[in-house]
């Protein structure tokens, strides 16, 4: 039924369109084609500056209107060290390209209007102007040079890995995020600050979604938290991996983005600068955040009260790509230490002593071998585990 209606509407539109067109042509042939064409040309020419003004006004007005929601220029301040540099580069770029945008669009539509057809006027025969062309090749070249140099310095510092002599745990902490269809699996290294080894062949959905190799002791205190929790003002190196297809580790507020690739771990190093609580406080003063969190429910909490940093996926990974959310919490160092203390290692709570405990079974095997050979266990760590 609806199909029929749509079809009918389309046919109707077609007929109307053709009729309008015809009427105009008829009109033209009655009044003398040239005269009508001239009139039409004038009218179209006049639309040029009108469009220009509306267009530029629309651009500026809408930009101002939406600016409070934008990352760099909005209500939310940037929350990482390198992010601030990106934002200032972006402002520079906006200014440079904005100027060019205005000048060229104005020239385009203004000339189109100004030089529209007038009977009896002759266009100028100007085929080229070498000096002018050199100038307007050189200017963009110089401007680009500045943008490139500025951009690359921001890029190279934002993307640099931790220095080689940096000590994990002291100078920076390392966490891990693994994309899978369709969730992020997070891992925190625990007190030893070291992420245990993994092997994708060891993955099982029941109790080892990451395929952590339990024979490697570094993994025994690894925590698998449900949210990312990080201390403020401490460098963090995120080890980014994927289990199945490409994903992308994306933290908009920290200007962090990096593909997660099965088989090829990547990383991103950044330093958060604003805790979640501080951010809520800042936002509580912004008009666009002083609105109900749920617009349909005026009784709901304020938008700023519900603020959380979020982790998203930014590389198409399948039908649930849009749903891979995790909360990110930035806390003070003390809160962070307390948090780490309160977490239980996955190995301790889920694996230790069960059938899946490969560390134990391997130890037993070794034990037996050793018993056969020497009959005394030597490795202290074994008793620790038992």
């Amino acid at each position, binding site marked *: 039924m609806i199909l029929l209606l749509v079809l009918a509407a389309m046919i109707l539109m077609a007929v109307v369109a053709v009729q309008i067109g015809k009427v105009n042509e008829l009109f033209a042939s009655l009044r003398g084609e040239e005269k009508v064409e001239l009139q039409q040309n004038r009218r179209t020419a006049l639309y040029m500056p009108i469009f220009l003004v509306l267009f530029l006004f629309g651009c500026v007005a809408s930009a101002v209107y939406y600016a409070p929601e*934008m990352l760099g220029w909005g209500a939310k301040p940037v929350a990482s060290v390198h992010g601030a540099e990106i934002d200032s580069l972006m402002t520079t770029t906006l200014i440079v390209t904005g100027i060019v945008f205005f000048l060229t669009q104005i020239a385009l539509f203004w000339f189109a209007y100004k030089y529209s057809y007038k009977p009896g006027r002759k266009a100028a025969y100007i085929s080229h102007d070498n000096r002018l*062309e050199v100038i*307007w090749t050189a200017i963009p070249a110089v401007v*680009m040079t500045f943008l490139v140099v500025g951009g690359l310095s921001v890029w190279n510092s934002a993307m640099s890995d931790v220095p080689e002599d940096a000590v994990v745990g002291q100078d920076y902490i390392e966490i891990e995020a693994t994309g899978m269809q369709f969730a992020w699996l997070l891992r925190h290294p625990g007190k030893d600050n070291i992420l245990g080894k993994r092997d994708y062949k060891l993955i099982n959905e029941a109790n080892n979604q990451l395929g952590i190799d339990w024979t490697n002791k570094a993994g025994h205190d690894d925590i698998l938290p449900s949210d990312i929790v990080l201390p403020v003002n401490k460098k963090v190196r995120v080890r980014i991996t994927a*289990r199945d297809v490409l994903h992308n580790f994306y933290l908009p507020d920290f200007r962090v983005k990096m593909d997660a690739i099965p*088989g090829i771990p990547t990383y991103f190093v950044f330093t958060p600068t604003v805790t979640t609580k501080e951010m809520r406080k800042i936002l509580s003063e912004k008009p666009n955040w002083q609105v109900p969190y749920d617009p349909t429910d005026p009784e709901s909490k304020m938008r700023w009260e519900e603020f959380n940093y979020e982790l998203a996926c930014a590389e198409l990974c399948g039908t649930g790509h849009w749903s891979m959310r995790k909360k990110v919490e930035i806390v003070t160092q003390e809160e962070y230490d307390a948090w780490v203390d309160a977490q239980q290692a996955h190995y301790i709570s889920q694996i230790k002593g069960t059938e899946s405990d490969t560390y134990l079974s391997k130890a037993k095997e070794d034990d037996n071998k050793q018993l056969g050979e020497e009959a005394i266990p030597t490795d202290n760590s074994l008793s620790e585990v038992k």
Partner: protein
Amino acid sequence: MADIDITTEALEHGHDHHDDHHDHESDKYRSSFISHYIFSLDHKMIAKQYLITGIFWAIIGGLMSLVFRLQLGFPEENFSWLKPILGKWITVNGEGMGSLDPEFYYALVTMHGTIMVFFVLTAGLSGTFSNLLIPLQIGARDMASGLLNMISYWLFFLSGVVMFASLFLNTGPFSGGWTAYPPLSALPQAMSGSKAGMTLWTISLVIFVASVLLGGINYITTVINLRTKGMSFWRMPLTVWAFLVTAVLGLLSFPVLVSAFVLMIFDRSLQTSFYLSEIFINGQALDHVGGSPILYQHLFWFLGHPEVYIIIVPGFGMVSEIISVNSRKPIFGYKAMVLSILAIAFLAFIVWAHHMFMSGVNPFLTNFFVIFTLIIAVPSAVKVFNWIATLYKGNIRFTNGMLFAVGFVSLFISGGLTGIWLGNSALDIQLHDTYFVVAHFHIVMGVAAFFGMFAGIYHWFPRMFGRFMNSTLGKVHFWGTMIGSYMIFWPMHYTGLAGVPRRYYRFDNFDSFAQFASLNEFITIAAILTFAVQLLFVINFFYSIFRGKKQTELNPWNATTLEWTAPIHAGHGNWPGPIPQVHRWAYDYSKGDRDFIPQTEPLNDWELEEEHNH
């Protein structure tokens, strides 16, 4: 070559003579319906075939975008009314709420991208205008090989058939994005569309590449070998330069895409590990180790970036031509225009990794790609300045072709400038894979290339069909599209700058991205209206083929170029008499006291004198 010579000779005899020889020639020129309209060897007919097939695909691709835009604009709306068309892809819950299946949402996005990029803006655009204009503007009777040309079209048609068939697969068409990154595309278990849908997608595109290559070889050979007497390279209209460069770009880059697909097919069917490594999916650890998904991205974008220029460069050429003709002025800086196209084409091959800044490639290598990428802005800027300078002191006729040409320049400026943001890798950390990229490439490539195509269609419609399109409807079409496309794509800059990622089925799962519900409604409504305006164009197009105002003058736009010297209903071979010869460049508008001087006119005494004095 021999073939052409015979043709030339046969047609150089006058009309009467021709009739005498009717019997003897009839086997070659017998124009039955099939040889004239279907398996035609005539470049003019093949151009029309490309164009109409392109229009068909543009409508399909456009409709697809409306469906997924409905989902994005009105995620809470009941879509069960789409059930009769989309069938099982609309899932209706207990309360009768119908929603678009996410799998199909992604299939639509993927098909939309593939169709628009390859079928409409590559085949539909250069297929149409390279075919129509190269022989007519360089003074050739046809392409170097009419047969290859015909095969090229029919391969394109076949690839379309395969792609179309994939829409009806039970598991759905391919849904992993037009870039088809593995492992998502390589693993049938990763997504329903990666099953048979991906197989057909790959087959279709391999056939498509064959079509592009046959076409491209032909265009290049024709331009190099079949220029008429006097048509030196530096006298060619910019259109021909543009088509030549486009063909070279395609010839050098499309084979690399095939190599990417071949490795993909190996991985999919022979269990090799070019792109796959250490994958655990659907409860199973796969055996593949040692492959790299990044390898595919390198191969893909080695085509992918030149491809975006394959799409826009024909527009460069046609817009230059149309602006010059309708401003009644020579194109400003002809040599600079040619050199800038060549520079852009060269640079297009060494910037591909700007699509991969956040893909996990070595950040140090990125430095080089940033430098090359931002250098492209320089020749691009030169082109824009030259177009604007061509308007300066002109005497402008706003034909529909001219309107779309001016619109093209505006869009190219708007979208090109955001390229400067994205090309700076530091900014791309924030912008990559957000709606900002969607805004960028739709404005600079999608809409701008469509504008180039519309400009070309309105301008050369009489050359194709001997009639004019209705100019009032054309004006409505222009303003509707100009305003509509900016309303669709401009706001996407804002959502992108707010961090909203592209390729999301819903935005309300994240607090960070949920705040644009009303803006998304606005965009969807703008898209529907803009699409409706395109229907006006389609109506106007088909109506005018049969009933449009008849072309009465040979050269309706008073242009200098050769295509307007051939008879209105030129047969196969284009000129019944001898091929015109060329004595000057294509841009002698408003020279001396003449409005225009055709390329066929020998230099006048006063011109020689002037040249002497310089």
